[in-house]
């Protein structure tokens, strides 16, 4: 059974239909990478899965449970997932450590000591153990992004949603985050990652999905979709980014 099953989801903002009858299956332990033009709805899809947006139609099932049903407890459902936002969304009034321990203490009711030790372990994992007392304002973009990832990971989610986690990072830091995600994947974490970095997609993806016109136009392994796309639209998109942004497509 799929861990996440998105079936015929539609989401419109006014007259702007962003997701149109979109379907997507994610198996346990799979890392699915979403690619597509800016504005194609990658963030919107991730926000719908996290129930931050109410879908107009269709079903999203997490571990077989229809989470788009208005009767389900949205908070409890969200607590089973972790999401890392494109713009980090760290809480500016809390220290790095408090950002990470907020949910473990308040939602998962962990004793503060244990939450703290887990948070420190997580910070060590993302290489920021010495910045635990800092405020988000005092961190670089890449450091903030890693804190955001740690904040999501510390709750041991069954599904991680990562929205362009590398878009603000320099190539070296992209490498760090990439290593982190690769390690996560080998731990068996299920992930959906949206990105503009094709090299990144090649390295971590079990499956690459190309989003266009509100649907997943093409799905396959990175080699298939990026190396030998079947659809004309995918080819156009890939050729545009190859010529437009030469640096992003090279293999690492």
């Amino acid at each position, binding site marked *: 059974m799929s861990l996440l099953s998105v079936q*015929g989801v*539609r989401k*419109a903002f006014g*007259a702007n*239909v962003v997701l*149109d009858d979109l379907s997507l299956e994610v198996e346990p332990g799979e890392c699915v990478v979403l690619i597509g033009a800016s504005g194609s709805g990658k963030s919107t899809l991730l926000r719908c899965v996290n*129930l*931050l*947006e*109410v879908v*107009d*139609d*269709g*079903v999203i099932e997490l571990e077989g449970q229809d989470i*788009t*049903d*208005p*009767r389900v407890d*949205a908070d409890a459902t969200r607590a089973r997932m972790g999401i890392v936002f494109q713009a980090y969304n760290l809480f*500016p009034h809390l220290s790095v450590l408090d950002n990470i321990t907020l949910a473990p203490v308040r939602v998962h009711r962990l004793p503060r000591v244990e939450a703290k030790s887990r948070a420190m372990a997580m910070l060590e994992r993302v290489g920021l153990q010495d910045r635990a007392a800092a405020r988000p304002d005092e961190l670089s973009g890449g450091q903030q992004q890693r804190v955001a990832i740690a904040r999501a990971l510390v709750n041991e989610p069954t599904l991680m949603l990562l929205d362009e986690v590398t878009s603000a990072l320099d190539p070296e830091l992209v490498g760090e985050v990439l290593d982190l995600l690769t390690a996560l994947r080998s731990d068996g974490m299920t992930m959906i990652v949206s990105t503009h970095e094709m090299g990144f997609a090649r390295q971590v993806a079990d499956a690459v999905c190309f989003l266009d016109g509100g649907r997943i136009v093409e799905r396959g392994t990175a080699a298939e979709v990026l190396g030998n796309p079947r659809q004309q639209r995918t080819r156009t998109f890939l050729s545009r980014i190859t010529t437009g942004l030469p640096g992003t497509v090279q293999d690492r």
Partner: protein
Amino acid sequence: MADVWTPSPRQRERDAYRRDRTRRSGLAAAASTLVLGGAVVLALTTSPGWPRVQHTFFSPEKAWSSLPAVAQGLWLNVRIMLVCAVLIAVLGMLLAVMRTLRGPIFFPLRLFSAAYTDLFRGLPLLLVLLLLGIGVPALRLQGVPKDAVFWGGTALVLSYSAYVAEVLRAGIESVHPSQRAAARSLGLSHAQSLRFVVLPQAVRRVLPPLMNDLVSLQKDSGLIAVLGVIDAIRAAQIETATDFNYTPYVVAGILFVCLTIPMVRVTDWFARKQGFHGAGGIV
């Protein structure tokens, strides 16, 4: 392509469920209000002292006969409030902006603003009213107005602008520094960043507390009655003096509340229209 979508049966079922739940919570709210309201009314009207209470506070004839005088007094309150509110907004904004100026040459302005707010927030309004409204005219200075409404209004403006300035300053300081940085990076001057980027966000954020001050101002405009001005409260007092029937006070109270409620609703509506949902929204 956009127009051909029709909701699936499952979606229609969900929509129906949501509508049903909205309706049910509406019904539950109405029912609990009715039951509670009914219980309160019943408890009041069946209690032994009720006829006397009703006669002294809720006498329809007395209410009707005192209404013109009280309403006329209220009209004065409203005018005072409107004029003062505008002046307070201007003065409060000026003080708040003064307080946020950076740089050593502005130190006197900052100091003045800080001292002003400290002073007028500390002084009881009644004291300021008496000092200005009774003290100043008693000096019989040449060219200084003697009008009690003028001095009462001045006292209100002086006191309230100190509160409003502090609320606005809190709003200004709550706007994240990155907003100012972004504005400055576009070439906007300090004043322009303040005017076009910081203040609009700040004012929206502090609209509810500002509204509080406005409502409170409306009520405190009644305090100028101590200077002998006949506003709604004083008019009601005069009406009660003849027969010790206190219904005119109730009339004045109801009129004040009736003024406040639409004012608060209008601001709420305005804030929403501006696209300000605060931490609301679906999550």
